[in-house]
């Protein structure tokens, strides 16, 4: 693939002009004639029976056009926030990790502060808010439970009809852990905890819904999986799928937080009732209190290593705080339970993991999907093991690193892997050896350097049905090319990457390609943006569609050139027989001919690609879930002020196996953005809950990293050229966040010798740990 002309070269975003001029329309920007405003009434109680919802006074308020409650939802609106399908498109609930525990509005019982009880639509926001205050809800308070460990105890209040509040669990056994521990030279056990982290996309979630005369509903909204949302909506509204249409607007960031939410069905119900367009936009506070953030976790980890550093046993106990509902918790639990086991060459594994209901905000998907908390535990643990073995942490990782061609304990087939190279490159570029050996005591603010490694997927199959992507490439009357993809542009740049792929195959410029916004009436079906599947899977489908279009175009070119279509080459806007560029016709001439000549046709290229992955066996949980695994290593250097506990990041060095960077600038942007989110997770971000109430539901008190918090980032893209990915590409958006928190925590340990086992690593925790260390030293 030496002579790639577009793929592999940085290209500015195809929607960049729209984004910098203010013309890009996001969901809160959509305005329709006669549009009215929706607002949601939420439970103020963490756990309460909802006896009666009296809307009569609100309904009499002038300007109120619709009020909806659970009574307005069709029967059978129980739902999961995700569906996983079998071959017939039935919900594969029995064999895949999923729970069906939600309704559009909470019915009978409110289970967290923020649970949706009712909604109104009125002529303006003031009227809608006044109407909410006039709705009278009779609550009967129930005892709440907030701590998942308490929620599992006998006698704890139950949220749903499940024993010990356990929504889902995994029991995994591989090899023989007892035997493994028996062989171990060192064993270490520790409990790690991690916090709620909010996606905090800058663009709030909004939806505009409109119903036409035939009862067909259209929604303008921001979704990571519009096709799945169409199915969920049609189920929940009791409408056939043909009556639901979704237009994707520009998306103001997603990071896992813009999967299907209650916003869309509630907005649709309001529009159906009011028979007017309705806009429902969450406030920032609502985003914080009621949009599923990254779960809080409790992890007990025990690992053993032999004298030479080989990891001989791993035993893990995980409690994932689900909050009030399951959401996508079961598959996040799956990720926490299994993913890191394929990073190193573990053979003896014992894991018990639980998803547990509590009366707190339901957790959901967030970049990394269960991987970041578990990787924090594992990679912190690796450092401690290295210390016990008197080994360099880099050496210990290299000793155990996954290698290409191996099959992991869970059946994951590693077809490309540059983990070793990533570790070596990150260590070298960060001057690891030199900085690790540096004397620390001389500084008033000690410096430290730490490493974290990670593994991730490029798409992850949890169920037997279609997990692929479809794409269509058409060629217009003036040589302009349209690319229709069902994959979601969230800002990550997939429109540009897909356009580059089409340009590469058709031998044209990216500027000649139009990438329309997704519309479920016209766009081909794809699963959407999650699990790092878009480029790897959607890119393959797009490439096939472009090749199909090219072959059709070559038929017309062959007529003009009197050549064999199989001999033609498309390059730099021209088509010619291989080896005879002087005989070229232009792409434009051929496109025009296909469109205009008698007996011509519109060229429509089709591409479908379903990855060669398999869902885990429901019993053994064994199976090659992804067609490509990604790896990376990150080194963080920090300075810690022992007087204040403040951690200053000095620099990051991140080496990631991206397979192949189709758009290097965009890949770099993904890695930089993820590193900073990872730094937020590691050091500062924390949704503080007190008795089920979110204490800091705003950007003043929930602190995101700002420009003042960033440090130089050295990004290294290692290209392992995956045999399955398009041009060798693997997913890149999620991995870079996974290893950041442990790299930081390990650097803090290296700097001041205290290990913080709970995220985020705050000044308060550091000071407390330093005091405890000092007290211990004195007492000895």
């Amino acid at each position, binding site marked *: 693939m030496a002579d790639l002309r577009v793929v592999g070269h940085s290209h*500015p*975003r195809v*929607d*960049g*002009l*729209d*984004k*910098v*001029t*203010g*013309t*890009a*329309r*996001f969901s*809160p*920007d959509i*305005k329709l004639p006669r549009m009215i405003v929706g607002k949601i009434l939420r439970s103020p109680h963490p756990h309460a029976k909802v006896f009666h919802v009296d809307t009569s006074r609100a309904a009499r308020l002038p300007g109120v056009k619709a009020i909806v409650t659970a009574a307005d939802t069709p029967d059978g609106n129980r739902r999961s926030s995700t569906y996983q399908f079998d071959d017939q498109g039935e919900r594969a609930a029995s064999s895949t990790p999923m729970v069906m525990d939600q309704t559009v509005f909470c019915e009978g019982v409110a289970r967290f502060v923020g649970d949706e009880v009712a909604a109104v639509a009125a002529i303006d926001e003031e009227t809608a808010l006044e109407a909410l205050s006039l709705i009278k809800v009779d609550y009967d308070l129930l005892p709440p439970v907030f701590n998942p460990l308490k929620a599992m105890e006998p006698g704890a209040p139950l949220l749903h009809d499940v024993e010990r509040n356990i929504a889902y669990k995994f029991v995994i056994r591989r090899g023989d852990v007892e035997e493994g521990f028996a062989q171990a030279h060192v064993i270490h056990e520790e409990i790690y905890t991690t916090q709620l982290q909010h*996606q*905090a*996309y*800058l*663009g*709030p979630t909004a939806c505009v819904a409109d119903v036409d005369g035939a009862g067909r509903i259209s929604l303008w909204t921001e979704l990571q999986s519009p096709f799945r949302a169409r199915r969920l909506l049609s189920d929940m509204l009791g409408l056939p799928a043909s009556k639901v249409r979704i237009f994707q607007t*520009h*998306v*103001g*960031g*997603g*990071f896992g937080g813009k999967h299907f939410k209650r916003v869309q069905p509630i907005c649709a119900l309001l529009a159906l009732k009011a028979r007017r367009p309705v806009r429902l936009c969450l*406030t*920032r506070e609502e985003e914080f209190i009621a949009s599923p953030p990254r779960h809080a976790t409790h992890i007990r980890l025990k690992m053993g290593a032999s004298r030479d550093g080989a990891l001989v046993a791993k035993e893990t106990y995980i409690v994932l705080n689900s909050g009030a509902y399951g959401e996508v918790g079961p598959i996040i639990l799956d990720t926490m339970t299994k993913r890191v086991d394929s990073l190193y060459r573990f053979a003896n594994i014992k894991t018990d993991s639980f998803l547990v209901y509590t009366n707190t905000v339901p957790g959901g998907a967030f970049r990394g999907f269960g991987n970041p908390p578990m990787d924090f535990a594992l990679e912190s643990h690796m450092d401690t093991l290295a210390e016990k073995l008197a080994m360099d942490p880099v050496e210990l990782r290299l000793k155990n690193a996954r290698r290409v061609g191996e099959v992991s304990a869970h059946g994951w087939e590693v077809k490309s892997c540059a983990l070793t190279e990533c570790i070596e490159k990150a260590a070298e570029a960060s001057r690891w050896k030199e900085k690790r050996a540096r004397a620390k005591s001389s500084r008033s603010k000690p410096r430290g350097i730490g490493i974290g490694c990670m593994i991730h997927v490029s798409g992850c199959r949890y169920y037997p049905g279609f997990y692929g992507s479809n794409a269509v490439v058409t060629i217009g009357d003036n040589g302009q090319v349209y690319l229709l993809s069902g994959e979601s542009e*969230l*800002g*990550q*740049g997939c429109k540009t990457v897909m356009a580059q792929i089409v340009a590469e195959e058709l031998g044209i410029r990216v500027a000649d390609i139009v990438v329309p916004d997704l519309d479920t009436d016209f766009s081909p079906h794809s699963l959407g943006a999650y699990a790092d599947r878009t480029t790897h899977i959607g890119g393959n489908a797009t490439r096939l569609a472009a090749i199909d279009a090219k072959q059709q175009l070559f038929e017309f070119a062959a007529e003009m050139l009197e050549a064999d279509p199989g001999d033609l080459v498309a390059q730099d806007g021209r088509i010619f027989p291989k080896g005879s560029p002087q005989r070229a016709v232009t792409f434009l001439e051929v496109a025009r001919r296909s469109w205009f000549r008698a007996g011509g046709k519109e060229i429509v290229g089709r591409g479908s690609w379903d990855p060669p992955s398999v869902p885990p066996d429901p019993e053994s949980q064994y199976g090659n879930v992804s067609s490509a695994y990604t790896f990376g290593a990150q080194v963080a250097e920090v300075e810690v002020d022992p007087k204040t506990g403040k951690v200053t990041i000095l620099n990051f060095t991140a080496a990631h196996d991206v397979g192949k960077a189709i758009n290097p*600038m*965009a890949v*770099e*942007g993904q890695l*930089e*953005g*993820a*590193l*900073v*989110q990872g730094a937020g997770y590691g050091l500062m971000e924390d949704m503080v809950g007190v008795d089920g109430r979110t204490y800091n539901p*705003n*950007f*003043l008190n929930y602190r*995101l990293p*700002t*420009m*003042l918090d*960033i440090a130089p*980032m050295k990004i290294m893209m290692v290209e392992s050229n995956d045999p399955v990915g398009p041009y060798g590409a693997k997913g890149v958006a999620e991995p870079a966040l996974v290893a950041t928190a442990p790299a930081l925590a390990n650097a803090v340990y290296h700097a001041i010798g205290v290990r913080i086992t709970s995220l985020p690593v705050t000044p308060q925790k550091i000071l407390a740990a330093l005091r405890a260390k000092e007290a211990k030293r004195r007492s000895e």
Partner: protein
Amino acid sequence: MKKTIHVTLNGRPTNLEVPAHRLLLDLLRDEIGLTGTKEGCGTGDCGACTVLLDGKPVNSCLIFSGELDGADIVTIEGLKIGPELHPVQKAFIQDGGAQCGYCTPGMLMMAKSLLDENPDPSDEEIRFALSGNLCRCTGYAKIVQAVQDAAAELRAKRAG
């Protein structure tokens, strides 16, 4: 209570009838239809709603319309210089300074106001000036780079 105010909006003198308590952000977005200015928080904590008021950057979610009589307001829709993109807009495209683009209008207005005052800022100065503008996507590095590149282009233009 409605009030009539005279403002210059993106270079054009304009008369507006506004409820005095209407926020500038809502006035721009809902009544005038200039939706380029974004609301990320509504509480003055994210900078997505930044516009220039009499040449100075402000959070439009915190300004009441009633106070605006005689004001000169520039929004993202008025950032172009004639038909040309402002150098900072060009640089954001070229350097990858925008991902989802939701913070971008606010960032651009803040960057323009910085460059108006300081044509040759250091990275530190850029980070300080833009620190009230949150971005969740980019990790900021490419934004700092874009502002530097725009500054260089502006300086070259002035010199040439």
